[in-house]
């Protein structure tokens, strides 16, 4: 018979010390509290920016107040930003949609089948590191000047991040659920639609958010390097003319657009993953 468990020595009443608090992950602050925290963070950031920029005293670095003024100018006085945003957004939307259509199935397939995963994982690694920027001339020469090269570059920028996250998320889906579905005669398509995709939804959204970010970056970079229309043209002009305030104002407005899209996505995500 196995040895007995002797009582632990020295763990008498002394152990009941201070109370333990359970980690409460994912309990997001809501409403006014969240707003206060966010604004506080913004204020800290703005003050740091203001002082740092004043200390740097460079013609390329605007202060926070200069930037805010420039935002007001470009958005409401001259209105320069709007047509540029519009021009730049079209390839962004198409490119992002193409990325999603390619990467979500790909990521799921990688999570589902070991062979595909093994075959594609070096490709993913390649793509994660493939330096797109030096290849932009190649893409332009290959595909001409129209919408296509922009869309291609945006896809190149974003697909791999979506695929990686979808794969990671789908791998976390309980294996026994897939078995359960199969035992009920689910077809492969049904396994995907009913088990893998819902189970991977949180990670899919994380991937979509990151992918959207990369798509934005891709959009700006193509325009900066080769086809300066829209936002890229504005940025180049402001840079060339040392209009630092407007340069960062434009950047911030692009970020704001991206963040708004991300927040919309987050809202959708919240609705879809109540079960978490």
């Amino acid at each position, binding site marked *: 018979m196995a040895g007995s468990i002797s009582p632990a020595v020295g763990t008498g009443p002394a152990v009941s010390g201070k109370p333990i608090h359970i980690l409460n992950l994912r309990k997001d602050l809501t409403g006014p509290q969240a707003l206060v925290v966010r604004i506080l963070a913004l204020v800290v950031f703005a003050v740091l920016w203001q002082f740092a920029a004043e200390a740097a005293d460079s013609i*390329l670095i605007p202060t926070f107040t200069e930037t805010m003024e420039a935002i007001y100018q470009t958005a409401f006085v001259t209105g320069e930003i709007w047509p540029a945003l519009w021009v730049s957004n079209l390839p962004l939307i198409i490119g992002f949609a193409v990325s999603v259509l390619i990467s979500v199935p790909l990521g799921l397939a990688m999570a589902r089948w070991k062979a595909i995963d093994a075959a594609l994982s070096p490709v993913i690694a390649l793509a994660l590191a493939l330096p797109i920027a030096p290849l932009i001339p190649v893409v332009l020469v290959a595909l001409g000047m129209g919408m296509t090269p922009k869309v291609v570059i945006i896809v190149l920028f974003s697909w791999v991040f979506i695929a990686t996250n979808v794969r990671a998320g789908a791998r976390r889906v309980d294996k026994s659920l897939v078995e359960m579905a199969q035992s009920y005669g689910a077809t492969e398509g049904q396994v995907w639609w009913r088990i893998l995709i819902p189970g991977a939804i949180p990670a899919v959204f994380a991937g979509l958010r990151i992918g959207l970010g990369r798509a934005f970056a891709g959009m700006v970079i193509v325009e900066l390097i080769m086809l300066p229309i829209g936002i890229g043209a504005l940025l*180049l002009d402001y840079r*060339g*003319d040392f209009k630092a305030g407007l340069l960062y104002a434009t950047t911030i407005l692009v970020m704001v657009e991206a963040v708004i899209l991300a927040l919309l996505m987050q809202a959708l995500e919240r609705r879809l993953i109540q079960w978490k």
Partner: protein
Amino acid sequence: QDAGNLTLGFPGGVGPTDIPAILALQELEAQGWTTNYIEFDSPDIQTQALLNGDIQVASMGPATVFAANIAGADLRIVSNNNSIDFIVLAKTGIEECADLDGEIVAYHSTGSTTTAHLYRYIADNCPEITPNYMVLSGSANRAAALLNGQIAGTIVRMEDWIAATGGEDERAKILALLAETQSTLLTQTIVVSAKNVEAERGEVEAFVDALHAQFAKVYEDPAAYAELAAPYLDGASVETVAAVYGALVESELFPKEKALSPDQIADTIAFYEEAGRAEPGALTPENVADFTLADR
């Protein structure tokens, strides 16, 4: 002579027009100096490097100098590097400026120097046309796009055209050499920061002297110079480089005088004012150039 210390900045991608400056550095190095050169991708970063004292002299376009000074920087042109070397190109079949009406014409970006020159060319020669403008950055990219038939006309630097075609190609041809009509304008200058200039006066003077010695060498024998220059131009053959120098010398694009001409500066300022890139009166030759360094 005391050994000096000098770092020079270039816009990215060394071309034949940049070689004299590099060889001037070599010359100084041979005299015991410590020299260095750095290629910058964008003029604004180069400007900042100059203002910070990371580099002592820079090769940059007057447009950048003007824009930076309007934005509050204190840059000074101390020497010319080369005059306008832009050419207007068009695909075969387009014979004159007016034929560009309705065709796709590419330029760098709305506010760039080359664009201003292109507008000026059209205003001078065929003001009534409305080309279908599109944006395509990089002079070499535009040359390639033209050769690939993706655009009908554009403006590029002569050295890029010659590098891409060796001087001739049946797919496109030179519509105008702007050097002929706009020769009083500067395109590439040697620039210092006014704040640092007193401390580095000796170095800058020595560099300007060495640079002009190089220009003299080019004019002496362009073909021989090409052989010196080719190793600095990755992958370019000596013949191509020789063709470029031949063309540049023929058009007298390198300055023959060391002294900086106030008229040239004034013309260049006027040109940018006209192009709407500078407020009239905001710039004077004195606050963008330092004549004391070269006019000795």
